């Protein structure tokens, strides 16, 4: 570096003065450029005017969005963020109220029979252009979903309708679907097979209405922008700068508008970074923030009043049942089952409020015949028992004909909690049973690929509910289910799934789910880990926000503001 002689003469002092001048000019230039760019960007309409978290006067709240809603065409939406937005701007035949009961939506009353259903629509339901919401709009939406050209991922959730599956496979025209509009205000539905929870299904976003003339007029762009959507829900979308800003405003045409207390839900921040969202909350820019483990200490220090709820999903370790895999051996699975301790995992390892130890595939929030499913059908509890675990391990080794077990591959994702979970089990199985676990950490699509092709011994998996019936979990291990990635195949379990699918008698169905739960535990088909929770902090002036396991979450349609908490 020091290859040149040093000049320390008056000249360099002059030069320094010169450099400082240059610096001043440069700074001025930089500022000028910023002003110019800021002006240019606001001129192109990319600007987002950021207000404060709450404006009681105008009944406005500001919040962040985890990501850009990828799909607001209700016939094709699948992800959480899109469903959250859709739940506010659209309304189905029925909806869930604040205490998660089904209440009338567009339908005033309804009648579900074993062979079909009838919905009587209210005559004051309106689209945002003032025209009435009719039975034709529902029939059109449902036919569109099943049209193979539309390629809806959620088409299967309409397979209960007559001829639905054949239409989706292109064997029948969409007009053959078992749904007809008997006039503008009566919707007649025919079933392919009896379905006990159809009322719950029609509250789901995929069953929302779509008006044919508008859909056709958008020429393939339905749902792409604010002007490419018609709204019939409590809010309408008045602004959508992709990836940047979503703004919902109260829909003046909504039939039940008097119950909607907020005027504006403004979402000018789109980021999945929980740290950034918490900083925004701390700054008073947004009304609520979901916390991650990293922000929890900070929140405690600031004495924030934390809210928590279960988001409805349950997570577990799945085994690979393909015959060439060691995990197809019952005693090996039993050995692992007897050291599994969800309580320790949740309380000591994950250590986040809102998370609950899982004891069954069926999470605690599900309803049985009358009370909660968990109370009516308590699962067999397997408490950790090292003695039994080692006995099973010896039996497993004998059956498999090995003196020492080769390492098992645990496939997992790249999220922080998945890491903790995998390392915990690696440590646990090695410490308790001397079984070596090799963690195979993969990003989303690669993990799915390996799950589907069966390239694992154990995989950390989970399931979020589609509808509020135990069947959303109950058929996961049926031999024909594509989500049964370990290829578990048990005719006894399959029989119970068929009963649960085809019966309409609540008692018979819940008994079947009870049996499924028993088989899963006795056969050690999977190891339940945790029911996922959500910890959040919210401005105390905002009230009436509803969180739920199934459906729109969070739901601001009944939320309101108070001046002094």
């Amino acid at each position: 570096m020091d290859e040149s002689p040093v000049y320390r003469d008056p000249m360099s002092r002059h030069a320094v003065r010169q450099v400082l001048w240059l610096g001043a000019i440069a700074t001025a230039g930089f500022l000028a450029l910023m002003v110019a760019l800021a002006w240019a960007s606001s001129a192109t309409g990319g600007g987002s005017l950021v207000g404060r978290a709450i404006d009681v006067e105008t009944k406005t709240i500001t919040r962040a969005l985890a990501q850009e809603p990828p799909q607001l065409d209700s016939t094709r939406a699948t992800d959480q963020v899109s469903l959250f937005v859709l739940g506010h701007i659209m309304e189905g035949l029925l909806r869930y109220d604040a205490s998660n009961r089904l209440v009338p939506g567009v339908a005033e009353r309804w009648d579900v029979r074993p062979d079909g259903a009838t919905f009587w629509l209210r005559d004051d339901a309106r689209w945002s252009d003032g025209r009435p919401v009719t039975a034709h709009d529902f029939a059109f939406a449902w036919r569109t979903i099943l049209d193979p050209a539309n390629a809806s991922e959620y088409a299967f959730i309409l397979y209960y309708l007559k001829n639905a599956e054949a239409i989706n496979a292109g064997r029948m025209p969409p007009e053959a679907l078992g749904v007809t509009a008997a006039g503008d205000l009566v919707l007649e539905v025919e079933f392919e097979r009896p379905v006990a929870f159809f009322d719950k299904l029609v509250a789901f976003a995929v069953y929302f209405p779509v008006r044919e003339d508008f859909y056709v007029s958008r020429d393939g762009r339905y749902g792409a922008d604010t002007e490419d959507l018609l709204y019939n829900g409590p809010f309408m979308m008045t602004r959508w700068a992709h990836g940047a800003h979503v703004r919902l405003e109260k829909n003046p045409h909504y039939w039940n508008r008097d119950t909607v207390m907020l005027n504006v839900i403004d979402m000018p921040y789109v980021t999945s970074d929980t740290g950034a969202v918490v900083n925004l909350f701390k700054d008073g820019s947004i009304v609520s923030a979901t916390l991650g483990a990293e922000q929890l200490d900070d929140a405690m220090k600031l004495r924030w009043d934390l809210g928590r709820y279960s988001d409805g999903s349950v997570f577990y370790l799945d085994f690979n049942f393909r015959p060439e895999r060691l995990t197809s051996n019952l005693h090996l699975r039993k050995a692992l089952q007897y050291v599994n301790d969800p309580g320790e995992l949740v309380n000591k390892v994950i250590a986040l409020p809102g998370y609950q130890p899982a004891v069954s595939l069926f999470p605690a929030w599900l309803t049985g015949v009358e009370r909660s499913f968990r109370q009516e059908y308590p699962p067999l509890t397997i408490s950790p028992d090292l003695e039994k675990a080692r006995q099973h391990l010896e039996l497993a080794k004998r059956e498999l004909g090995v003196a020492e077990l080769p390492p098992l591959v645990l496939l997992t994702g790249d999220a922080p909690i998945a890491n903790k979970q995998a390392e915990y089990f690696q440590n646990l199985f090695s410490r308790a049973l001397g079984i070596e676990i090799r963690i195979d950490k993969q990003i989303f699509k690669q993990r799915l690929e390996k799950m589907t092709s069966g390239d694992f011994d154990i995989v950390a998996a989970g399931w979020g509910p589609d509808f509020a019936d135990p069947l959303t979990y109950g058929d996961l291990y049926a031999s024909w289910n594509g989500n049964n990635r370990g290829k578990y195949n048990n005719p006894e379990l399959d029989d119970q799934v068929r009963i649960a699918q085809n019966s309409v008698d609540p008692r018979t169905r819940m008994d079947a789910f009870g049996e499924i739960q028993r088989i899963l535990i006795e056969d050690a088909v999977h190891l339940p880990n945790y029911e996922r929770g959500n910890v959040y902090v919210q401005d105390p002036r905002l009230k009436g926000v509803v969180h739920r396991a199934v459906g729109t979450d969070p739901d601001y349609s009944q939320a309101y503001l108070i001046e002094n908490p």
Partner: protein
Amino acid sequence: MLAYTFKRILQGIITVWFIATVTFIAMHAVPGDPLANERATTEQIRLNLEQRYGLDRPVSEQYLVFIGGILRGDFGISFTQENRRVNDIIRENFPVSATLGILAVTFAALGGILMGALTALFRNRLPDFVIMFLVILGISVPSFVVAALSQLVLVDINASLGFSLLPVAGWGTLRHMIVPSMVLGLGTMAYLTRLMRSSMLEITSSDFIRTARAKGLPPARIFLKHQLRNAILPVVTVLGPAIAAITTGGFVVELVFAIPGLGRYFVEAVQQLDYTVIMGTTVFYGAFLVSMVIVVDLLYGWIDPRVRLE
């Protein structure tokens, strides 16, 4: 000059084609299924999806369709945002990345040249040590740390002032741009400072500076006309690639400051195996980078007449 420009542009086009082809092959070689989702689809639904995106056709045919699309300037429809065209995604989000990038590069270049010149003038004295310490810090601390830290500091500043001096995140006005662009440009500024320092030192000890001093030229004139102009050349060389790197590499800053730039789409598309967005953004960024390098080459001839372009 014209022939040279033409030749460089032709080379650029071939480079972009090469980038596109290699990306296409690599993308299809990566394990994973672009249409797969947590919720397994039935055979039929999967078939419908494949048809919609043309994935049921042989890979060679998909390649031809894709190249044909590029020639028509149409990158197709995103896999994850199924009713948005990739062209729209680039058109709406690139200006944001570009604005952020231009600001960051300007900040980096001005700061780098200024501080580099200062360290050279004060070599082995206190200002030199202080700045070089900061430079090493700037190079070694990753941007997600700097981004998160600066955001945290902002929150505290706003809280202690009692009003919002600068917004913590978001995009749209000048006030939103200041902190993110500085965070984004920090690493490059540190790198340019080092480059400028060594280049200045080399020039300072050269014969023509000694001659200029001997002639009794005013120091300001020596500094501006002789030292700075010669020392700045290596900085200009790396500026082109730096602009491209900064506008494409803003993923973390865009995430932390909730900025709707293209960098986020670029990274998320790769994670989600969103074929059309991967191809669209890669080809677009490739073309952008190549044109930046060409522009710098042409600029070079203007700054330094010794460089013969022909």
